[in-house]
Structure formats: C-alpha cells, structure tokens
C-alpha cells in the first residue's frame, strides 16, 4: 500500500517546463530523497505533491494534503507573533488540537523561546519551530523541503532522530536536500532530478 504515488508528472513554473515524466511511489516506512541542483524544480515538485500546484500532465495519487505534514522552505511564522502563538494559530488553521504545542517546542529545544516574537529568532531557530509542527499531531506522511537549511549540527542530528522514529512508526517521508541526510535510514530511495 503506497502512501503517495506520482504517475508521469510534468511540472512547469509559469510557461517554463521544469520536469517531465516524474514517477515514484512512497510506501509506509520509506524515505524518498529528492536531489537536484538549484532551480531543478525540487520545490515545485513538492508543491505539486502537497496539492498547491497543478501538474502540467500526469497525476498524484494517495493521501490528501490533510494527512501530510508539509514543511516548505518558508517557515509560516508570522514575525510579530510569538512562537507559541504561531504554532497555536497554525493548529487552528489545520483543525488540530493545541494540547501538544508546548511539548513539541520542548522537544526541539525551543521551550525558553516560546514567548519571543518570531522576528527576534535566528534562522536555525525558526527552522526548528517549523519542524516542531511535525510533532504536534501524528500524520502518516511528511513532506520536507530542504529541512536542513539553517539547522546547526545538533538540530540536524535531532531531525535525523525524528525521521527515524517516524519511519519506524510506519510513516513515510519525502525530503529534498542537497546535503546528505542525517542518521542511518534503512529504506532510502533517491530521485535525482539532474
């Protein structure tokens, strides 16, 4: 049973064709690592997977976007709201319970910062806050767009642990990164867009 399948997907940005005939499937416990140089269309492909962008051709089957956690390259943090407020309003947008917000922040080492406005945080701290969304409620599929950008060594290791735990729980992950992924992950398939 696949969580997500792309079938002969063509991706365009405006009137420029980026990718042609992309096909893959992600099963429970699988990690798909999408590689490619800058401008190859990684983020556009991710946007197609989560349903934000329409594919030119082909189709995406499997889970709805409500069953995925998507961390895009933008962190979705309003600069004037505090971290806790940001995560809580994200929860109400996603119709999730806010009970786990402080636990999730704790887990990513952001507990002390939770009442600071997002604008006062460093890039890595904001990235951690965006990743904290993954822990607020369990969803079977994670879609991560360059999750490592801005993270320090510690943060990278932490993310590796989180991904391993999610895969062990029979979750699936699609991740774009031009850096090697942290941690030892058993079932990795690589999609190189070069």
């Amino acid at each position, binding site marked *: 049973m696949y969580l997500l399948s792309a079938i002969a997907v063509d991706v365009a*940005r*405006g*009137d*420029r*064709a980026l990718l042609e005939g992309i096909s893959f499937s992600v099963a429970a416990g699988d990690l798909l690592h999408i590689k490619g140089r800058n401008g190859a269309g990684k983020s556009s492909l991710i946007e197609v997977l989560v349903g934000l962008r329409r594919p030119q051709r082909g189709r995406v089957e499997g889970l709805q976007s409500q069953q995925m956690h998507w961390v895009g390259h933008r962190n979705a943090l309003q600069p004037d709201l505090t971290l806790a407020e940001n995560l809580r309003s994200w929860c109400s947008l996603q119709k999730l319970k806010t009970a786990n917000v402080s636990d999730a922040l704790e887990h990513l080492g952001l507990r002390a910062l939770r009442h600071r406005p997002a604008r006062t945080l460093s890039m890595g701290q904001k990235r951690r806050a965006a990743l904290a969304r993954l822990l607020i409620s369990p969803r079977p599929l994670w879609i991560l767009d360059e999750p490592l950008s801005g993270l320090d060594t510690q943060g990278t290791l932490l993310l590796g642990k989180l991904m391993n735990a999610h895969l062990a729980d029979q979750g699936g992950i699609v991740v774009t990164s031009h850096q090697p992924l942290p941690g030892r992950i058993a079932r990795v398939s690589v999609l190189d867009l070069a």
Partner: protein
Amino acid sequence: MWTWFHRLASPPSFYQFSEIVSPWVLLSALGLLGYGLFAGLWMAPPDYQQGDAFRIIYVHVPAAALSLSLYTGMAVAGIIALIWRMKLAESAIAALAPVGASFTALALLTGMLWGKPMWGAWWKWDARLTSELVLLFLYLGIIGLNSAFVDRRAAARACALLAIVGAVNVPIVKYSVDWWNSLHQASTILKFGKPTITPEMGIPLYISLAGSYLLAGYAVLRRMQNELLLRERRANWVSKLLSEQKQP
C-alpha cells in the same frame, strides 16, 4: 465540428489558421470601411437638424459598439481561460485589451468632437460618456495588470478575473451615472432617443460598422499570433517556424 474546433484551439494550428485568414479579414475590413466612410461622408444627405456634423457618427458609433463588444469578448475569454485553462483564450485577453482601449479612446474622442457643436461643450457628465470613460479606465487597469506580471499565464488569469469583475461592474456604473444625472438636471438635449435614420444614412453606417468589427478582428488576430509566439518561444513549432522563414 467539435474535433475541428479542438484542433484549431491548439496554438500552432491557430497560428497557421490566422496566418491564412487574417489578410482576407484585413482586405474585407478595408473594403467595407472604405465604402462605408465614403458613402457616409460624401453620399449621405446632411442631417436636417445637425447638418454635416452628424457625419462623425460613422466613426463614433462603430468605435463605441466595439468598445463594449471587445470588453464583453474579453470577459468571455476570461471565463474560458479560467475554467478550461485554454492557452488561446489566455492570449486573447492580452490581445483584446489594447485594441479595446484604443476603440474606447476613439469613441470618447469622437464623442467630444461631436459634443462641442451639438451640446456646446467638449464634455458633459452624460451617462454614456461617463461610463465609457470608466470603461477606458478598466481597460487601462487590465493593460497595467497584464504588463506587471512576468509570467504570461499568471498575468492572463489575473486579467481574466479583473475583466469578469469589471464586466459585472459596467452596467452598475451606467445605472449609477443615469441616476446621478436625473438627480441633478433633467436634461433634454442629451436624450437622443431612438433616432430614425433614413436608408441613405443608415446603410453606410451598418457597412462601416461591419468594417470596423473586421478591422478589430484583424488587429486581435495579429496580436494573438504575436502573443502566442512570445509565450511558446521555447516550443518546437515556433523554432521550426522561425527557421522556415529564415531560409528562403
């Protein structure tokens, strides 16, 4: 019929179709316009009230009719572009806006020229004039919006939405200015009513009307071709076309 329509809707075949058709459209437009204007300006008798000044009708009425028709066409193309995401409809929006704006400006200008001898003023806040002016602003807004986007498809969809909202707005503007005027003055000069027109005057009008529509059609076809070339510049059919034209 339907498959024929479908095939025509693809950019390369539309380009070819337009390449063949547009010279004939231009030729018949010039013929009809030439005859209509000649008959209207020289052969038709002068109006018993307005004298020779009425002859501007042969430019004014076609321009005014086109300003509305082209806007309606743009809104219809907008609906098609938004629902079926047809490339041809998208390029039609971009092509229709400047042509429509030109005819709207022409209608306003000739209206002012006509107004001076008839009403004694270049401008009256008459409902038709005012809504025509608002229509010009709407056209200009669409042209501005279209040129602000880098991506042509996003531009076309944004313009489509604006054109549709504007199309809903045009009758409201017309009604509001009517109401506004009736509040202030019950003017009788501005009410032309339905002028009865003799065939000597009427037939040239209909002929120049048809000629103007064809001329506008020619301009739109050519602009659509241009727009398609620009949009599809990375496509095979464009590079093939360009290399064919270089060789001979």
